């Protein structure tokens, strides 16, 4: 077979298949390299199957936040509990996204400001 890096291509397609997308992207920081993208369970694994694509770094961050979510309560209403934890997980993702947005905004402001010679930086 003359397909360059066939083994790598196989790994790539397997990974995309696991991610469930041919064009995955981190929902918080915009990372598109499939090699470092994960399926994150916002409501926590075992509580709900819904997943979101996040890169490894962001995954670490939001997973850490999840450790502080309220613990599993066997007497809780299953559906309400699941929705609530999903919302918490979504909030964690949005917090990261908001951080990123601020970073982008500040970078843009910096770019837009004139250089010491009086011209806008491009």
């Amino acid at each position, binding site marked *: *077979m*003359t*397909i360059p890096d*066939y083994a790598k*291509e*196989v790994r790539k*397609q397997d990974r*995309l*298949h696991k991610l*469930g*997308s*041919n064009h995955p992207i981190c929902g918080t920081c915009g990372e598109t390299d499939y090699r470092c993208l994960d399926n994150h369970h916002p409501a926590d694994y075992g509580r709900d199957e819904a997943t979101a694509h996040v890169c490894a770094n962001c995954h670490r961050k939001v997973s850490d936040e999840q450790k502080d979510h309220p613990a599993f309560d066997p007497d809780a209403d299953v559906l309400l509990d699941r929705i609530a934890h999903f919302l918490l997980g979504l909030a964690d993702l949005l917090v990261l996204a908001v951080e990123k947005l601020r970073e982008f905004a500040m970078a843009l402001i910096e770019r837009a400001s004139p250089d010491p010679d009086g011209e806008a930086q491009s």
Partner: protein
Amino acid sequence: MTACNPPPITDELPISLRAFACPVTGPSKRYVDSAPRLGASCWTLIFDCETTSDDAQRLRFGTYQVRESGDLIEEGIFFDPASVSPSERRTLRRYAKSKGLQLLTSDEFVDRIFYGVGYRLRATIVGFNLPFDISRIAIESSSARGSMRGGFSFELSADKRWPRLQVKHLSSKASIIRFAAPFKQRSNRSMQKKGRKEAVQRGYFVDVKTLAFALFARPFSLAKLCDFLGVENPKKEFKDFERSISTEMIDYAVRDTQATWECFEKLSARYAALGLNETSQERIYSEASVGKACLKAMGIVPWRERQPDFDPRLIGTTMSGYFGGRSEIGIRRELRQVMLCDFLSMYPTVCTLMRLWRFVIATGIKSRDATDEARALLESVSLEELQSKSVWQNLVMLVRAKPDADIFPVRAHYNHADQATIGLNHLTHDGSLWFTLADCIASKLLTGKSPEIIQAITFAPKRKQNALRKIRINGNDDYAIDPAKDDFYKRLIELRHEIKSKITPGDSPANRRLKTEQNTLKIWANSTSYGIFVELNVEDASSKAEVLVHHSGDEPYRKKPSKIEKPGTYFHPLLATLITGAARLMLSITERLAVENGLEWSFCDTDSMALARPEPMGQDEFAARVQYIIDWFSGLNPYAFGGSILKSESVNYSLDDPQELVPLYCWAVSAKRYVLFNLTGEGKPVLRKASAHGLGHLRAPYDEENPAPDIAKPRDALVNIGVELWQHDLWVKVVEAALAGKPNQVNLTYHPNLQLPAISRYAATSPHLLKWFDDHNKGRSYADRVKPFGFLTTLSMKRVNETPTILENPHKRHPSSNPTKPVSPYADDPEVAARNAFDRNGGGAIPRERLQSYAQSLAQYHLHPENKFLNGNWLDRGPTERRHVKGGAIQNIGKEANEWEKQVMLGFDRDAQPTFGLSPSDILGLQQSLAHLLPTFSKTAMAEFAQLTPVQIERFLSADCRSAFAIELAPKMLKLAQHFRRRAATERSELKALRRRVEEIGLRPAAREIGCDPSNLNRRLKV
């Protein structure tokens, strides 16, 4: 045909009505959309096989391409080492080296490319007629199981890592192709603990033949498709397949794969332009698939999902009022001048007039009694009022009527035909039956009398669904359709008209884009306005399956059927029933207008009618009256553009000048079997339109390269006329015989090839068909067998040719003899096929002289009877007359056109149609009817006729009408009752005639006349 006082009853027949059968075990499994399926990767594998031309059609070699995002990454050749000689191998090697191609064995291709790329890299696997190619690279096949039952399971590789491939034939244009589950644990331990399974990777298969048919609604060969799409590298011509593999042959094969790729690219772009992003192209199997994808793209949830608990009895009622489009002959085998008129997009138009789109986007439907309204409307409606669009909005009604010589669609086995057909006939019935209100109005128009309405139900849509989405053609906002605000059908037709009006002569890029856009709209309109609403998929039932049959009567009943029906995704029988009813009303209005204007009609076919000029009427008067009828329908135009919804077809005008009306003539034989032509100054026919009905199953005995010497070339393109050359020539001869005043005698000696055995080509598309070749295949390796999807050739027996069976003991039961059905392994040459023909029912060889030639097969083509009407028998000519049917027992049936393609090719198959028998109340009636016949005919005589025992007859007569035994035996008993009722009627009329004779000439002379003893005659007459 006249529509005045009804004739006396001409037939007493059981009638067939559609029914709706649900599984007894619970509500039908609801269609549940599975989680979004991951689309194919950016890889594409295209491949094609070249085979031997013997009956095995085994693989010789093939070619392939591997592309990533359209870029060619690898190109190669693969070959079967066992069928390629050393010198051919050298040829292949030299060629591959010179062109920089890979050279693999077929096993290597399967493991490294087919699975390595097609499976592991989730490529789209592309071919032309993929099932055939897949079966060539397989190493073994068997019958598929589970949901793919009826299809094949192929083993492609000895490597057990790779899953098998399943292929199930849907039609001659489409098959479902998918990978089976791999032979390993699919889920990891964690998933297993949770009771979950990883989804099976089914693969992504696109058969270019299938996609082309779905997008353009016509079949293509690869060569014709290349031409149609204007690809850069079309298929080459090559004929020397019998010889050794040569450079030219490999060139041809390599080009085939390239041509397939280019066609795929263009078709993919066309499909992408439809904007149906929710449905990937590998799920497109037909125009109906496009329709469903369209509705899905608009976010429309199917009715059956939104309203799963809708009363199935009401579905049964609705289905009983469902009949297909009208296709009839009004004047048979008589040369008449006509003008062909055609309704603009009939089904979308009636959908718009009745505002049926509201139902498609509704969360459900509600019904209420509307008996008084229906009666009032029927009583007051007149022909003039039907020009008002508002009247049509009130036609969303089903009506239970008591037919009393009213004209309704009647589905019956006319003239003892094997197949039931639908004809608009007078109907009288002791009970009441369901029809659309449109059908009742049509009856009133044609008889002058309103049918008696016992009950009527009207329907209204519930509130609109949420989350409906706009769609845009080609992503163009100017061509957006908002399903929530627009009437989808109206908008489609208007947009299409708007786009068509912008097309100018010439082939500019702008014109090409406009033509693509208007073609998109045409596809959407055709695919969403009818077929998907009546889609029912038939499967063989398991032995334990039991259904609850909901029918026209009151109480459903249980039955164990041999076939079950599964509703399609957008199944909505109310819409399908209303649409066809309204279309029939349109044709009935046209018929009534024709009569009022002193015209006749030669034929009608779903959305068109050929209006015929009566003899004394002048040309100008005829044209003026047809124009009057056309103009009458202007008031019913629901669209933003003006004009009538009834159009004069282009065949009414000269081939040389599309503005000039010229006399058009019609010769109609039976439903869908007619020809339209002009006459030259010398009185020679120039065909404008002809039907291939009843001819399409035959392989062309000759073509343009070997034409009939004495028949002029067609003036118009054959694709416009609608037939192949040999079919055109047959019709020319039919017309010439008619013009010569000898319409019964058609000369079939005009081409020597008509004396060859008549052959048809089909493919071994199911394990059942492949079984015919069990004897042939015994002891052969897979490669040498007749394989799945391999072509086979069917032939016909001469009619008076069956070997008589001598019954040694006529009183004993004997198995019914199966007619001889000749079949042969694939051969395009009729003589070769004839040499290898054997009986697929018995296995024995068949002598050549017992096979029917083309001439013999076609000998009675021009006489084919129109059974549904009177004056429609073989040699009858002139206007047909409606029958007056006294409807008897009701046979509840399922999908009529099940496996129609296979039946056209292989002959009528009574078992293909799902049947649900008679209802208990009809069985009770049948028992009484049979009991009434018993004094006249013995149980033994009845048993002998029905091939039952007297005990079974006795048991049936005393059985509970709801019992499984009675329901099972009822259809046979019905035939028995019909037969003996006819006999009783015949005997009564003979006795009556005898009594008259005796009165005329006396007992003894009468007895002498008929050769019997006077005392016996006297005794008989006293009975």
